[in-house]
């Protein structure tokens, strides 16, 4: 019997006349890594951003642990924003372009959320933050400002900032796409460690080889629907759908 951490049911989202998500259903067991693959415009980033309500779906239900939001019944205005915020508090997010706070030191980037939003005691948070920085190999950078770090280091701080919130789920939005090729490896290594430590992660990426190694579950999206899903061996190793095969061929040729 598996413990379901994320449950998504009937998710729809359109921007104007463009249907980006057309009925998405999936579940993620606790402590597993789910990788979202798909061509650009397939809706994978919108799906990821729906999981923490950065984008608000038109309808459908997202549940993370004990917090469940039915977007078709979301009240307007303040009440709706409060419900979205409750769902958002379940996850941490790592952005493609790190979005670190440039006016805060590395350590402050980590402590800001736990201390200010979660109102936890500063010394306890600082202790945990230093442990996390050590874990991502940046213990000596605690007092640096983000602009003093390399792209790969910045992204590792971004990951530590997400973990400092002690979230139920960690979301990654193309965490290596903005990096120089030689810096990709150090970031992927950190993400792989997380997966093996039991964090529940959802990752949007173009790194197929990385997906093969790290994913417990792969979802292949195209045109706003999940075309194919299964283990990496199934979806990447032996795809059943022509659309999946075409995508993999294209990406692997260029990769």
């Amino acid at each position, binding site marked *: 019997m598996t413990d379901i951490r994320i449950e998504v049911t009937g998710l729809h989202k359109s921007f104007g006349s463009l249907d980006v998500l057309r009925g998405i259903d999936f579940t993620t067991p606790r402590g597993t890594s789910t990788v979202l693959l798909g061509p650009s415009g397939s809706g994978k980033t919108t799906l990821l951003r729906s999981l*923490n309500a*950065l984008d608000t779906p038109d309808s459908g239900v997202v549940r993370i642990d004990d917090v469940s939001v039915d977007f078709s019944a979301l009240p307007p205005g303040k009440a709706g924003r409060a419900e979205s*915020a409750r769902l*958002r*508090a379940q*996850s*941490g*997010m790592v*952005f493609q*372009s790190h*979005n*670190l*706070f*440039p*006016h805060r030191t590395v350590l402050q980037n980590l402590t*800001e*959320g736990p201390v*200010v*939003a*979660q109102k936890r005691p500063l010394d306890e948070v600082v202790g945990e933050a230093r442990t996390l920085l050590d874990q991502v190999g940046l213990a000596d950078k605690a007092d640096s*400002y*983000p*602009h*003093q770090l390399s792209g790969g280091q910045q992204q590792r701080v971004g990951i530590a*900032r*997400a973990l400092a*919130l002690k979230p139920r789920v960690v979301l990654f939005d193309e965490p290596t796409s903005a990096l120089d090729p030689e810096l990709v490896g150090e970031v992927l290594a950190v993400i792989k460690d997380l997966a093996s430590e039991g964090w529940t992660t959802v990752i949007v990426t173009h790194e197929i080889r990385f997906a093969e190694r790290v994913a417990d579950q792969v979802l292949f999206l195209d045109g706003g629907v999940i075309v194919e899903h299964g283990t990496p061996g199934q979806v990447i190793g032996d795809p059943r759908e022509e659309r999946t095969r075409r995508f993999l061929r294209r990406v692997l040729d260029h990769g």
Partner: protein
Amino acid sequence: MRQVFRGAVLLLLLLIVVPAPANAQQEQPPLVRVGTEGTYPPFSFHDPGTQELTGYDIEVVKAIAAKAGWRLEFVETQWDAIFPALDASRIDLIANQVSRNPERAAKYGLSSTYTYSRGVIVRRTGDQRISSIADLRGKTTAQSSTSNWAKVARDAGANVEAVEGFAQAAALLQQGRVDAIVNDNIAVLDYLATTGSKDVEIAGDAGQSGSEQVLALRQADSALLSQADQAIAALKADGTLRGISQKYFKADVSVENGGAADLSEGRGPRSTWDVLASTAWPMFVGLVKVTIPLTALSFAIGLVLALLVALARISPYKVLSGLARAFISIIRGTPLLLQLFIVFYGLPQIGLKFPPFTAAVVAFSLNVAGYAAEVIRSAILSVPRGQFEAASTIGFGYAQTLRRIVLPQAARTAVPPLSNTLLSLLKDTSLGSVVLLTELFRESQLAAAESNEFLALYSFAGLYYWVICVALSAGQKRLETRLNRYVIA
């Protein structure tokens, strides 16, 4: 700490919004606020030695007060603002050689006459085109636009160039910018004696009849008026008025045909250095006691308002953003001087009367808010969207995101344009001189009216402004360096 700051801001707002309560003490003698120019020698001017307000009108009104049992408070303002100030109850009485005429008699309570004089026409020395009132037709004269002399000049067919006092008018005439001046015989004699000027001369009388000068009060203050009249009658009877007049004019102008005024001894011309030396300190006091506090307070309150307006402007609520847009448009679309006049002279007509300093703070801070709101809005919008998203993923609400993430970054963008706003504000406070504030610029005007040292005094006042601006610019540079520390390696 934050609570203390909030409390202080609230208290400030309260002080500014709540008009000072009227003086309700019954026991003391009545307080009469006297409006006068302070720049119209020898009637109303500042003694160059002591800086005290003095002159014929000042001594007369003090003598009246002694007889009538009034306490006096002098309010100095330029002529064209005197009657509006009386209408708005900022003053109770005008003692500034107000000539009696039918229009004023119909609208105001005019006292009995305390000065008999005649108007004269002043021309550039040897200008034969102008020798009588008839020659003014089609010529240009320089006058305080609402004065009786301006009316005389207009009636004679002259174009009137509006000025703020006799000293300015004389300067314009000397420089050839106007053809003539119509003014009081005594004022002209004083000018000629004091400056020793040979560039202008009296061409002749302005019309047949002499003119009578009186105190002006609000018509409703009939009790005050009858006290004044009784006092004037008594002072004439006991010779006090004659004494004051003899002291200033060597003639008795308090009765008709009391002899020709002789001011040839004058108050004596002084060297430019003397004038500067005796004015430097009063200007510095005006700078420190009015200009700088006015600038600082208006800027601080203006910034807080500007932030609120900027947030309203970018809010998704249509009504709120519409109101903010309208406010910004009105503030930026109308002259600052007009805004100042609306607050100072306009609002009292609907019962909102502020003391001069408060009125100036209200007007200036609203003006700052209008300009700074656009600066702050664009600075907020220049913060990348990802910063807002990242803040929301670490659990921040709107206020937390704004205060801890967005505003510190927006500050970097906003500091240079806001510094411009501050520098403009510092210099714009010189407009406070028209709403009864004796700030730096007003001090230089007062001294210039008495001494005619326009170039030296205004340059010196400019030096004060410039020094403060240089200091502020240095402060801006340090602040920018500090805010840049996290973007420049």
